[in-house]
């Protein structure tokens, strides 16, 4: 589904990603772990197409197509979704209005008719129940004044509405209390299928107890330095990243 080959990327002449290779297949869950500043968020932004990052070398191939030059919305239309670490506050645009626009613009790009209003409302109701989101919340301005947990639940709600092929969850666990973490990961798990894939970017092992990965990759200084199964996450939790740094320098 997603193939990243020797990806180098940076911002204003500063190299951040220094040769990433990653293969994600349908049905898989990958976790990317690493300390602060290792390039985790850059990787997710680059996959989603954030324009301030420049890809200097390598390819991002999604569903057989090189998407290096695709605008963020085109990547979304092709089925890539990024759950933001810091969802942006958009005053004056309600959650409902926003999600409705997102869905209909995506449908338009795929050559489909707009979703009928009653169908839309039904879908919104269904997905907001999944994420235990209060109806009143949907008529508030997007992310404005939301708590950390509300913002993250809202991200997963959008994911549920848009049904992406590939979901990248960037530090979705940060700022979540245990209840919110359960709701969010329960939501993600319910959306998993053999046809879609999830990339979980996280600092800690905690989230991976709820969303169990098939593969764990460790990102250090812009490179994936070690890959393994879910037990690698536990090892990292126990020994810390310094252990890996030492092992590598040996």
């Amino acid at each position, binding site marked *: 589904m997603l193939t990243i080959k020797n990806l180098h990327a940076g911002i204003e002449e500063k190299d951040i990603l220094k040769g990433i290779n990653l293969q994600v297949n349908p049905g898989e869950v990958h976790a990317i772990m690493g300390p602060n500043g290792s390039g985790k968020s850059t990787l997710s932004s680059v996959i*989603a*197409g*954030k*324009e*301030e990052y420049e890809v200097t070398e390598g390819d991002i191939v999604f569903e057989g197509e090189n998407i290096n030059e695709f*605008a*963020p*919305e085109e*990547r*979304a*239309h092709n089925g890539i*979704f*990024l759950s*933001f670490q810091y*969802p*942006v*506050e*958009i*005053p*004056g*645009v*309600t959650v*409902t*209005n*926003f*999600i*409705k*626009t*997102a*869905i*209909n*613009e*995506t449908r338009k*790009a795929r050559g489909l008719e707009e979703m009928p209003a009653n169908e839309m409302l039904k879908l919104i109701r269904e997905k907001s129940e999944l994420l235990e989101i209060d109806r009143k919340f949907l008529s508030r*301005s997007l992310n404005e004044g939301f708590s950390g947990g509300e913002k993250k639940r809202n991200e997963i709600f*959008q994911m549920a509405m*848009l049904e992406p092929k590939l979901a990248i969850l960037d530090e979705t666990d940060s700022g979540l209390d245990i209840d919110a973490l359960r709701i969010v990961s329960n939501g993600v798990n319910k959306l998993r299928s053999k046809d879609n894939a999830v990339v979980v970017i996280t600092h800690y092992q905690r989230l991976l107890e709820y969303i169990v990965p098939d593969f764990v990759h460790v990102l250090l200084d812009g490179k994936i330095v070690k890959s393994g199964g879910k037990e690698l996450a536990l090892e990292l939790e126990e020994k810390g990243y310094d252990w890996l740094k030492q092992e590598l320098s040996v």
Partner: protein
Amino acid sequence: MDLKEKLVSSFMAFEGQIDVDAPVHEIRSEAIKVFEQKGFPTKKEESWKYTSLNALLKNDYTVFPKEESALQFQDVKKYFLHEIDSYKIVFVDGIYSSYLSETSHEGLDVCLMSAALSKPKYRLIIDNYFNKIAPKDDGLTALNTAFSREGAFINIPKGKVVEKPIQILHFSTGKESALMLQPRNLVVVGENAHVQIIERHQSLTENPVLTNSVTEIHANRNSIVDYYKIQNDAQTASLIDNTYIAQKKHSHASVHTFSLGGNITRNNLNFYHLDERIDSTLKGITIIGDKQHVDHSTLVHHAQPNCESHQDYKGIYADKSTGVFNGKVLVDKIAQKTNAFQQNNNILIDDRAVINTKPQLEIFADDVKCSHGCTIGQLDEEALFYLQSRGIPSKEARALLMYGFANNVLASVKIDEVKKRIKKLIAMKLNVNIGFEL
């Protein structure tokens, strides 16, 4: 001959067309002298520093409207709020169109200024209210007063809640190669009365139009007046809107100005507090591009204690457009416990766009709450990426952000059809096909 000379020398011809024995004629004669002395404002005047009328004054305007031009309702229907029942006072090239209008004398007066100025039964009301709050020393207002003959006359008696909004529409057909209009409106709202008014000026051709409009509004005790100005005129049409509102005890008056089109638009909006416990609301959305220019010059004169004023103007400027916000709040020494709030937020879409924003607070009382804030910025790139990553294309994402930015101002619009219409006009202006609904 320049425009000023032409206007002054036309006054005699104008006198030939009207009843010079009417009491208001003395007011007109005084006013033409003031205009002769003051002329048109220039950029040398502080309050006109950023708005130049020079280019407009070069046109050879026809200054008197002639006979009525026929317009079919179908051709202009889209400029009306036709989805709702309303009173309508419609002018075509400055002449009243009875065909397009729907006036009334049943329980209220929704009719013509020409009738109010000439009929004896309105004598008292004209004596009491006409040209009472419009300043005597302002050149443009004096010019309008001198040629005041036609416009809307709205008189709401005590206790009357007017169920239907009143629409005032001015069309120009381009029959003249260039046309100058001087509409004069008078709105008198009695005690405990409530009225909603929507005003729009629309040129139907490319021929230049310059409208110098004066509206006087008297909100008597406990009354509620909501006024909506929809400004989305042709590129060759310019408007100088002079609106003066005098409020009495416990009255609430609001003016929403939506400036989305036109060549040069200058809004002089003035509120005067004549008593205590008054509430004034001044709100605006400006979205312009090309070389359009919109100037909001507001004044709220807090002359009595315990009153409130709320100002909120949002502006979005693209291309080489220019904007001005000059918001003056004057709080007299006796106006203790005043609450005066002012906000002006602007987004510049283009490096070439310019906004001049100037809050001007003159506070002489010591126990007041006055705040003001103005911001100038660009669209947030992070927010743009967020929307795009959800599949909303760049152009639509920008439009959504701009709509969200301006949206606050729409919250206080009380007529749903006005709200819908403005949303539609904003979508058109931003060239996107998204209904900002739900």
